[in-house]
């Protein structure tokens, strides 16, 4: 009964989405307030209905209702409760429901919190959100219905892929989807603005918080995925340039560009047309990511051709959304009046450079990911594009982004003095020299040149961002108490920028450290054996058998010592899941923040007396994710800036208080 209720709620949501779309659009065109206002209750109703469907599916998973096909295929009665709940989105159908849950939650948020939006803009934004909802609800109902029953019901399920039975991966998709779908807000605002024919700083002020929220969650989602790959796949890599990773990286790059160009619209009323285009492109890339992953085209072009139903549907959806919005753009964008003027060397100019380079970076990943598919479909041959290609093409574009990122905030709006800005960055310059000197000294015995470049870049990004903050609060130029007072009263967006930019430096530090100086040992070890890695002594004590809820594991015990003093006991596992007959490695990691000691237990050797053991020393690697979390925090802090707060401008006006300090 409950799954049928969920199914029914989905169908109902589709019709509510129609109501959310058509009357408000007509109402906005004819200035009919009653018709426009329909969008608000419709958006809330759609969210509630989709939540009911999601709840129904979750219930089926939690109580292990094996009369539902989706539960049979992805669950098992012995599966731990955490993974019964997260297993809902660990499969295709459920993940699409999660997608639309996010979409409707964002839509309802605009309906509830968007009271200060102009009525026509609000109606149109909600209508476009409704339109996206129609597309995805149709997709779920026609190709990916999770509520299909099996009769007779099997006694137990096939279990979830064991690789997904992991806390890191359990929460990775919700963050990723919140990011993907969050960019739909920028898209809806862009399309609504094109219909309105008007883009002004107020528009940017409404778009920016949504973009910030989406960007922050997407950052977190990508960081979590990378962290999961690091500890779960068992060889300590953290980014593979896999097409599936690239699918989430492209919207992130474009979204980063959007975040910055929207600042120019808000502060200077310039780059309007470009920002609208970026909003469209960013969400289109999110849709394309969904297409790439959900259509199965990446697995093989052949498999896609055999069962193209889902893929074709998303492709059509992608074509309608992207094509339609770009058509609207080409018709309406020329009418957008260009605003504030600026010289090439200015804050605006720096943000234009940021956008140029980030767009190129996005295009590089796009070509590298899609061109091989294109060649294959066109039967022009097969090429492989892997990490060596992206390292050779993406990194040269990314480096100038980081260099410019530090200089940009020192430039004033409209016209700036580059020489003066660089002079104020002398401390960062000193840091770069110091970083290079220390790196060269550390790897005097011979080390990669990339380490020098990476460390220099990390120092520049981290120290340069802090110097900018110090300049703002006039540190060491005015008494400490004054600086403190300035820091407290700086707008949150300034804090957010410093945190996010400095965090990029931290991530680069981690990436450089582990790429350049990781130590690896792959050996066959018997209990009692010793291996020395990077000055640490690893003793393999024993292997024991452990029973998990739905797996059996071999658990190794390693004692790590340094100069005879105990450091850690590491217990890596090798799990065998009985239902899926799959093996996973649960690596054991000891982190000191400055480096990770990493042990993975592999297969037993032929005669069964020894195990293949991989031991790694990864210097600085935790900083990759500390930086990732920092970037997300920067976004969230910026989001609390008072000018984004709901109704803040109006309250201020009413109370007649002085405006807060401007953000620069």
């Amino acid at each position, binding site marked *: 009964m409950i799954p049928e209720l969920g199914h029914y709620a989905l169908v109902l949501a589709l019709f509510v989405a129609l109501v959310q779309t058509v009357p408000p659009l007509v109402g906005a065109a004819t200035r009919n307030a009653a018709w426009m206002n329909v969008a608000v209750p419709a958006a809330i109703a759609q969210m509630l209905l989709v939540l009911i469907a999601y709840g129904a599916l979750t219930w089926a998973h939690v109580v292990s209702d094996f009369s539902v096909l989706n539960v049979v295929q992805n669950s098992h009665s012995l599966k731990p409760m955490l993974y019964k709940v997260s297993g809902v989105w*660990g*499969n295709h159908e459920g*993940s699409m429901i999660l997608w639309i849950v996010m979409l409707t939650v964002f839509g309802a948020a605009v309906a509830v919190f968007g009271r200060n939006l102009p009525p026509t803009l609000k109606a149109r934004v909600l209508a476009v959100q409704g339109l996206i909802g129609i597309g995805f609800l149709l997709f779920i109902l026609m190709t990916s219905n999770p509520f299909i029953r099996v009769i007779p019901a099997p006694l137990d399920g096939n279990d979830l*892929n064991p*690789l*997904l039975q992991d806390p890191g*991966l359990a929460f990775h998709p919700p963050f*990723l989807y919140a990011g993907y779908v969050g960019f739909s807000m920028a898209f809806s605002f862009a399309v609504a603005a094109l219909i309105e024919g008007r883009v002004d700083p107020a528009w940017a002020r409404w778009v920016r918080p949504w973009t910030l929220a989406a960007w922050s969650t997407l950052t977190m989602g990508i960081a979590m995925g990378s962290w999961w*790959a690091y500890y*779960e*796949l*068992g*060889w300590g*890599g953290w980014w*593979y340039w*896999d*097409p*599936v*990773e690239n*699918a*989430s990286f492209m919207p992130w790059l474009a979204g980063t560009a959007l975040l910055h160009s929207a600042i120019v619209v808000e502060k200077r009323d310039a780059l309007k047309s470009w920002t609208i285009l970026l909003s469209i492109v960013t969400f289109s890339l999110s849709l394309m*990511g*969904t297409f790439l*992953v959900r259509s199965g085209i990446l*697995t093989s072009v052949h498999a896609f051709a055999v069962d193209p139903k889902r893929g074709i549907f998303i492709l059509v959806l992608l074509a309608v959304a992207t094509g339609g919005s770009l058509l609207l753009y080409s018709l309406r964008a020329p009418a957008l009046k*260009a605003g504030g*003027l*600026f*010289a*090439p060397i200015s804050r605006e100019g720096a943000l234009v*450079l940021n956008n*140029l*380079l980030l*767009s*190129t970076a996005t*295009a*590089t990943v796009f*070509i590298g990911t899609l*061109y091989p598919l294109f060649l294959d479909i066109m039967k022009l*041959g*097969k*090429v*492989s*594009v*892997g*990490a*060596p*290609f992206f390292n050779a093409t993406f990194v040269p*574009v990314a480096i100038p982004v980081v260099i410019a990122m530090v200089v940009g905030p020192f430039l004033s709006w409209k016209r700036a003095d580059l020489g003066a800005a660089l002079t104020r960055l002398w401390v960062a310059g000193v840091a770069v020299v110091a970083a290079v000197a220390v790196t060269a000294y550390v790897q005097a015995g011979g080390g990669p040149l990339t380490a020098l470049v990476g460390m220099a870049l990390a120092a520049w990004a981290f120290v340069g961002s802090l110097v900018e903050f110090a300049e703002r609060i006039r540190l060491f130029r005015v008494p400490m108490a004054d600086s403190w007072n300035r820091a407290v009263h700086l707008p949150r967006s300034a804090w957010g920028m410093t945190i996010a930019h400095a965090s990029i430096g931290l991530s680069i530090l981690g990436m450089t450290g582990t790429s350049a100086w990781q130590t690896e040992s*792959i*050996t*066959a070890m018997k209990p009692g054996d010793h291996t020395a890695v990077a000055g640490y002594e690893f003793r393999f004590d024993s292997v024991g058998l452990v029973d998990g809820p739905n797996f059996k594991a071999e658990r190794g015990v390693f004692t790590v010592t340094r100069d005879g003093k105990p450091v850690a006991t590491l217990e890596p596992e090798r799990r065998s899941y009985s239902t*899926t007959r*799959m093996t996973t*490695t649960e*690596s054991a990691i000891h982190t000191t923040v400055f480096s990770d000691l990493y042990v*993975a237990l*592999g*297969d037993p050797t032929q005669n069964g007396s020894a195990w293949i053991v*991989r031991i790694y020393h990864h210097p600085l690697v935790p900083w990759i994710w500390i930086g990732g979390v920092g970037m997300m925090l920067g976004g969230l802090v910026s989001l609390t800036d008072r000018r984004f707060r709901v109704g803040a401008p109006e309250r201020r006006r009413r109370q007649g208080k002085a405006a807060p300090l401007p953000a620069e």
Partner: protein
Amino acid sequence: MKRVLLATLLALSTLSPALAVQPDEMLPDPAMEARARDISQELRCLVCQNQSIDDSNAPLARDLRLLVRDRLKAGDSDDKVLAFVTDRYGDYVLLRPPFKATTLVLWLGPFAILLLGAIGTFLFLRGRRGVAAGADTAPLSADERRRLDALLRKDE
């Protein structure tokens, strides 16, 4: 989501994660082994999804790893090893695609986009500066001068 797919793929290709290079494959000479590892990262495991033979534990990847090490032992240079493998398996085995007619877009595309973008940006900025300069220096017409004077007088 990306990981979900990756995981599914791993399941499909019956791989358990980890454990690509095995101890018995390794060469006794650490320098030569390091070269073998570097070369392995450039070569695709042909039966896997976008994995290098260094990362994969498919049997074919193991065969290729052994082949690479055999060639190194025979005294081949790194390039010669890559050429040897490419001769047998085609360009598809290279994770860094070779520069040829069908990969022009791949290698030059990013730089072409950067160049086009830079030209576009330059034209945009120059156009804007023209507007700015015009706005700054256009002299007042006689009529505007009269109205300005009138406004200034009104203030006094």
